[in-house]
């Protein structure tokens, strides 16, 4: 059965076509075809090890950091393949930002954490204003406005993660990739981030990997369900409107997974 890979209205922010990712000779994901809707939240779910992070990292060429990783197929972004030889990954990452599983602020001040990315990308405007605005968008401003010169590490885990989000939005990307951004956080901090993501989708396209099905159901507009085969290569099982996927799964595996019968 061919998986559903389309959505009804709106434009496509980025699209994977016939994508295979290898780590050395091991094929980690295969035949991925996926369109990500602009200014919506797309959740990637599936059992552990099925390649969600691998797919996510493919969208901004973070897989380049893994020496053995190799991407085949296409990822179309504004009409061109980001894996073409003439494409500079630096530019791709400037447009497609990323928030990681574990908060990883720089060992610099809170202010510098936010300002640095903008500065190296040639930001010409009012930096103080940009920092404040980014921190406000990340719902962190009120908590840190009096200690901007303290280390980013002086914040709590949830605050650190919001700082990382502020840092990412300070460079005004189009798409924000989030790889299980709340898995290291407590439930309250998790909820705050989820609320924040809802706010952010007004301006940004968001792709979020989560292993938490409630989170996907609560916080996303679209959901892609991945699974893996006997050869342990991950593939896309089903993609749909989140409501639809959770209430009326087309695929039996999807149904089994969301009802908790495996995974």
């Amino acid at each position, binding site marked *: 059965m061919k998986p559903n890979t389309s959505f009804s209205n709106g434009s496509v922010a980025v699209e994977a076509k016939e994508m295979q990712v290898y780590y050395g000779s091991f094929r980690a994901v295969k035949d991925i075809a996926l369109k990500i809707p602009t200014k919506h939240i797309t959740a990637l779910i599936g059992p552990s090890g099925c390649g969600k992070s691998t797919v996510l990292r493919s969208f901004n060429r973070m897989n380049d*950091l893994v020496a053995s990783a190799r991407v085949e197929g296409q990822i179309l972004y504004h009409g061109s393949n980001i894996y073409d030889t003439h494409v500079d990954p630096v530019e791709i*990452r400037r447009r497609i930002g990323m928030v990681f599983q574990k908060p990883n602020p720089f060992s610099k001040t809170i202010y510098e954490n936010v300002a640095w*990315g903008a500065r*190296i990308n040639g930001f010409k405007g009012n930096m103080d204003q940009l920092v404040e605005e980014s921190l406000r968008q990340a719902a962190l401003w009120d908590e840190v406005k009096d200690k901007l010169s303290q280390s980013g590490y002086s914040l709590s885990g949830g605050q650190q993660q919001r700082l990382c989000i502020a840092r990412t939005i300070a460079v005004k990307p189009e798409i924000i990739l989030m790889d299980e951004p709340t898995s290291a956080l407590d439930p309250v901090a998790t909820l705050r981030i989820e609320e924040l993501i809802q706010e952010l989708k007004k301006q940004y396209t968001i792709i979020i990997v989560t292993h938490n099905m409630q989170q996907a159901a609560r916080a996303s507009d679209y959901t892609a369900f991945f699974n893996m085969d006997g050869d342990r290569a991950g593939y896309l099982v089903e993609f749909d409107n989140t409501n639809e996927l959770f209430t009326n799964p087309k695929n039996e595996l999807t149904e089994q997974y969301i009802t908790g019968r495996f995974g």
Partner: protein
Amino acid sequence: MDNMQPIPNQSETTPFPEGEALKNQIQWRHRQGLAWRLLFIAALLIAISSLIALLYNILNDSFGYVVVINKVDPQRLALDVVEEQILNTANTVSSEDDFELANGIANDSNGIGFFGIAYYQENNETLKLLAVDGVMPNAETAASGEYPFTRPLYLYTADAVLQNNQAANIFLNYLLNNVNSEIETVGYFPATSAAYAAAQQRWLSANPGLGLQSGQWVSIEPDGMAGTIRVVGSSTVFPLTQHMLEQYQEAGFAGNFGNESVGSSAGLAAFCSGQADFAASSRPIQSGEIEACRNNGRFPLEFQIGTDALAIVVNNQNSALNEVSTEQLQQIFTTATTWNEVNEAWPAQAIQRYIPGADSGTLDFFAEAVYQTSLASLPKDDLVRLLATNISTGRGRALEREQRFYESALVFEDPATWNEVCAAPAGERPSGCIAEPRTQEEVYDLLLAEVIQPDVVKVYNLQNSLLNRTAIATEAAALYPNGEITFRSWLSADFITDPQSSTPEFAGVRTAIFGSLWVIFITILFSFPIGVGAAIYLEEYAADNRLNRILQTNINNLAGVPSIIYGMLGLAIFVRVLEQLTSGAIFGAVESTASANGRTIISAGLTLGLLILPLIIINAQEALRAVPNSLRQAGLALGATQWQTIWYHVLPSALPGILTGTILAVSRAIGETAPLVVVGASTFITVDPSGPFSKFTTLPIQIYQWTSRPQAEFRNIAAAAIIVLLAMLLSLNASAIILRNRYSTRSI
């Protein structure tokens, strides 16, 4: 444990030990842990105790008593200058005969003079005794030392005399028995009881045939004793010896005696050359005189026979003067012409001085006590004059060409020759033509090296010096009676600021410290950027391919290559092949006086740089590897280039670790010796390095050379240099650590 309830077994067939067996098993594991812990403590103790042993060794050699024999006594030189001044003052009459002086003052209402108090007592109708600093000389003030010019009176003889001349031997016994009761009639005061006992003991030791224990005493009757006794020396002591000899005769001595008043110096000279049995002296025998005596087979024995309070006297018509101060005495005998120049209340008449002659111990004593000069405090002119009278003109010329004494006057060289020599082209001109003239301190150092020539004949280590002080003093006195025993810190300010010298007493490490600092500077300049750069390439950029793996393996292996091999490499490359570069010839920087070829600071620095390069690379790689990958990802995900990520985030995070590694590596370089020996560090160099193309030596090279010298004192200065090296290492490390900590707190 014991009151714990036993945990009931859940099943009979548990695979774990239970009950007693569990307890035993746990105890066994504790014991294993304890054994390991003891082992670690032992290892720590071994490490600490070997460090302590090392430190103890170094300290033991760096401080301690030394016996120094000066070829010329510096105090003697200083007194010569003062005495010359006193003797050359106008209106001064000098004589070795104190009667003459006493008569002179008696007949001159403006006369003033000084001599042994016995001569005053004899002429107290015509003379007037002055108080000094408010104290009158008398038995009490002499015994308490309150009177400033109190001095012992000595009789010197030798074992040989006492054994061969029985008359002299018994006379000394008689004198020691009776001098205390007779001395007041002459006008002098008894010696202290300790000095008296020491004199008796010395006589007993010279007469072992009597079989007496120390502390016992015997008095021998001179009845019918024949023979001849000859006493020569001090005019001060003369009345006392004369009186005792006459008494000796009255007591039954049947032989003859001669007693001559010629001055202490002349007396000691006559005694040492064997012309007299006793030398009477109003001052202690000097090291040169002891030497002269011993050369004649006479080992001088010292007997204090009384105490004098040097009398300052004026004519008894002189009503103005009743007391003088030491400062006033200084003026009276040198600078002042009339009395009222010294004190306004005194008459405006010319001072007439009557003083003992140059051979007299009294003049020596007066000069020392009143003027209290030391050689180091004399003005430069006096020092130059002393130098001129004590070294050959040839040597003086050489010294003057090295560095002149005065800006506009020559001391040794004649002006014509000087102008000719200094007209030579720049390279051949002696340094004295342009160098600043020598300062007072430099002339003093020169005098020390050229004339006084202190020679350390014996050194004691610190432990010995602290624990066996008295034993050392007796041993030194017995072995080197003319030696001076002082506590010496081989590590001193002079040691650090003086250049190298072939005499350990004058050697310093300044040149070596500068050499070490220069070499290390070049080493760091070369190895730090290259090492860190290479590490960044290997850690951050290099793909994991075969070429890079081979590179990495080689770097790791290079870190283990013996340092001498780096020395050979440095010799081949920097000294030989790159000579044009490392000698500075390319830059026109060759120093004309010393062609170092390629054996320069820069060659040494580069060699050590190569030596520590692998260490720096490996340490920096380690530090870079410790930076979490998430930091790199964070940077890259913001659209930073790899270099921006490295520069702004990876390097600052790794820097403390990189610096720690560099500190360790540089510390190793500072202490390296072998490669520098191969590269060609200078073995003897007194000129500070002036730049990277200078010849050089370093502290470890210096230490190495000193330890290989046979004389014991070189070991002492080597130990002192080790302390300097350690201090330098510690301070360099400390400043690097402070820098590092400041940096890592600043980047938060």
